[in-house]
Structures are given as structure tokens and as C-alpha cells.
């Protein structure tokens, strides 16, 4: 019995057995290898969730403390641009999911086009974010020495504040809008940084896919990048209502 087992073992684990070059020798199967890689990716994403969770907690606590300032600050954001960006990001998550499916089913042109669509949608998101940041710059709503409380102590002088029927805030509370914008830039900025890193990885993946990569069954990179991209989408799913929507009504 035992000797028989010993005799058969080298045949199975040795190099006589055909296996793809990308299957590392310490894994019994490609499925085990990909699950291990995905497991590691998930552990990384969970640390990312904790990281963004800290920002969300800070936002909720400060919103509770300086509620009028956070409502007035939130009224400065464009729901139209925010909604459009949400649409772009959810669509890019869908195209990325399709990309993973194309890689799994070895569809070369499908994978290339899915990655191109994801790339364009991701860049589109950052483009709109830039337009929003530019407006904050023009109105001196970037925290720092040039920050202006004009829109909040005198709402009639500000188009957005006037449209939202904001009441003038006292100077003390108006200055707390700087806390709102600090958190706004910290959260959307961190999210945008993740998008930029994702787009860089996406470009590399697209370059390889165009040259026929990922068609040999070794698609761990595509799958784990997909997990990362969906995670970035999830962060935005929470950022959008918290920053743009929940303070429509003071």
C-alpha cells in the first residue's frame, strides 16, 4: 500500500507531467494558485477598506459637530457632475467585469475592447473630477491660506449657495466649511489617486492584451486588477451620497 503510493507520487508531482509554465511548482493546481492570489488581493483590499473607513468615520463625526457648515459646503458640489461620474464609474466596473469574462473565455478582441472602454471611462471620471476641482480653486474653496468663507457668510453672492437657499452662517461656523472641504479633498483625492494607479496598471494590461497576452489561461492579473477596480467603484458608491447627496436638505 505505502510503497505503491510512494511509487506513484513522482509521476504526479514530477516534471514528467505536462503543466503550464505559469503554474508555480508549490501549487497543486492552477485553481489553487489563483485562489491564493485572490486571497492575497482580498486581504490587501480589506486593509484599504479600513483606511477609507477612517476617512468616512472622520467625515461622519465632523458632519455631526459642524452640521450647518457641512450642509452649506455640500451645496457647493454639483449633483449633475457627481451623478454623471457615478454613471461613468459603474459602467467602467461593468466593462471591467466583461473584460474578466473575456479573459476567462479566451476572447482576445473582447478583452482588448473591454479594457479600452474601462480606460476611457476611468479617464473620463478623472476629467470631470478635474473640472470640479478647478471650480473649487476658482472660488477659493481649497483649504489653506487662500480659503474664502465669502460663499457662506454671504450666500447671495454665490450662485450655488443662492440656488440652494442657504442662510448666512456666522463667521465661526462659516470657517468650519474648511473642515468639510479638507475632508472632501482628502476623500475624493485618495479615491482619485487610486483611479490614477488603476489607470496606469490598466495601460500596462492593455499593452500586453493587444500583443495577445492573457490568452494562455494565465489571467490572475486581469482577475485581481478587476477586484481592485471594483473596490475603487465601491468607495465611490459611498463617497457620492455622503459628499453630494445627504445634505440637500438642511
Amino acid at each position, binding site marked *: 500500500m505505502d510503497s505503491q503510493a510512494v511509487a*506513484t507520487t513522482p509521476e504526479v508531482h514530477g516534471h514528467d507531467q*505536462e503543466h503550464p509554465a505559469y503554474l508555480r511548482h508549490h501549487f497543486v493546481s492552477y485553481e489553487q494558485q489563483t485562489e491564493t492570489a485572490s*486571497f492575497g488581493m482580498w486581504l490587501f483590499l*480589506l486593509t484599504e477598506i479600513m483606511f477609507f473607513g477612517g476617512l468616512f468615520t472622520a467625515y461622519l463625526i465632523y458632519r455631526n459637530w459642524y452640521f450647518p457648515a457641512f450642509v452649506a459646503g455640500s451645496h457647493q458640489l454639483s449633483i449633475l457632475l457627481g451623478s454623471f461620474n457615478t*454613471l461613468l464609474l459603474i459602467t467602467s466596473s461593468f466593462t*471591467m*467585469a*466583461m473584460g474578466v469574462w473575456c479573459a476567462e473565455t479566451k476572447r482576445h478582441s473582447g478583452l482588448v475592447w473591454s479594457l479600452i472602454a474601462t480606460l476611457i471611462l476611468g479617464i473620463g471620471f478623472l476629467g470631470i473630477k478635474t473640472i470640479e476641482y478647478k471650480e473649487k480653486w476658482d472660488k477659493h474653496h481649497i483649504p489653506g491660506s487662500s480659503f474664502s468663507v465669502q460663499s457662506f457668510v454671504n450666500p447671495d453672492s454665490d450662485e450655488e449657495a443662492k440656488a440652494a437657499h442657504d442662510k448666512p452662517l456666522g463667521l465661526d461656523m462659516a470657517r468650519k466649511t474648511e473642515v468639510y472641504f479638507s475632508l472632501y479633498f482628502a476623500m475624493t483625492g485618495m479615491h482619485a489617486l487610486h483611479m490614477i494607479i488603476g489607470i496606469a496598471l490598466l495601460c500596462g494590461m492593455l499593452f500586453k492584451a493587444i500583443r495577445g497576452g492573457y490568452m494562455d489561461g494565465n489571467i490572475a492579473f486581469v482577475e485581481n486588477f478587476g477586484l481592485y477596480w471594483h473596490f475603487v467603484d465601491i468607495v465611490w*458608491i*459611498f463617497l457620492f451620497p455622503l459628499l453630494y447627496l445627504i445634505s440637500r436638505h438642511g
Partner: protein
Amino acid sequence: MNQGAFEMSEHFHNHDPNSGHSENEQHIVGPATYGLIFGALLVGTAITIGASYLEMGAWNPVVAIAIACVKATLVVLFFMHIKYSSKLMKLTVGAGVFTFLILVGMSLSDYISRAWGQW
């Protein structure tokens, strides 16, 4: 003996890199599922935007966060394949989310329950 040898070969068969391993086998999620989830996410976005224009007082943030949680769960289960993953992955993600909720929930309950300004 014959029986034993058969089981042995079955055992090694499962370690064959070219054969499917039932426990770890990859489930391929297709375009139909992705399309359905994409549609659900768009509907969720429309509802959350619509709800923000309703006057619900303290319920506005609650509704917005609840819809966001549903959307995030759909993304995790289907786009990120957790519904089709092994128990190890499900438990890991579940434990991570649970820890996250403890950290955020305990921090918030501390701030909310302090007698601010009364000392």
C-alpha cells in the same frame, strides 16, 4: 486492496493540475449576470439621487447609506465573484467587513454618547 488502490488513484487524480478540483473550481460569471447587476446598480443610483430630493429629515442619510450598502453588496457578490467563491474567501471577506463595522460603529457610538459640553 483493490478498493484502497482505487481510492488512492482518485486521490492523486485530484492533484492533477489539468483536472478540475471540485472545491476550488472557478465559476465563470457570464455577461447576462453582469448585465443584470449593471442594470440594478444604475437603478440603485437613480433611486439614491431621487431620494436625496425628498424631504425625509434624519432619514435622508440613512436611506442613502442603505442603498449604497445594497449596491456595494451586489458589486462584491457578483462583480467580485464572492457569491461563487470558496468558504474561505466568503469567511475572510465577512470577517473583514465585521471588523470594519466594529471599528467604525464603536468609534461613532463613543462620539455620539459623550456628554458634550456638560463638564
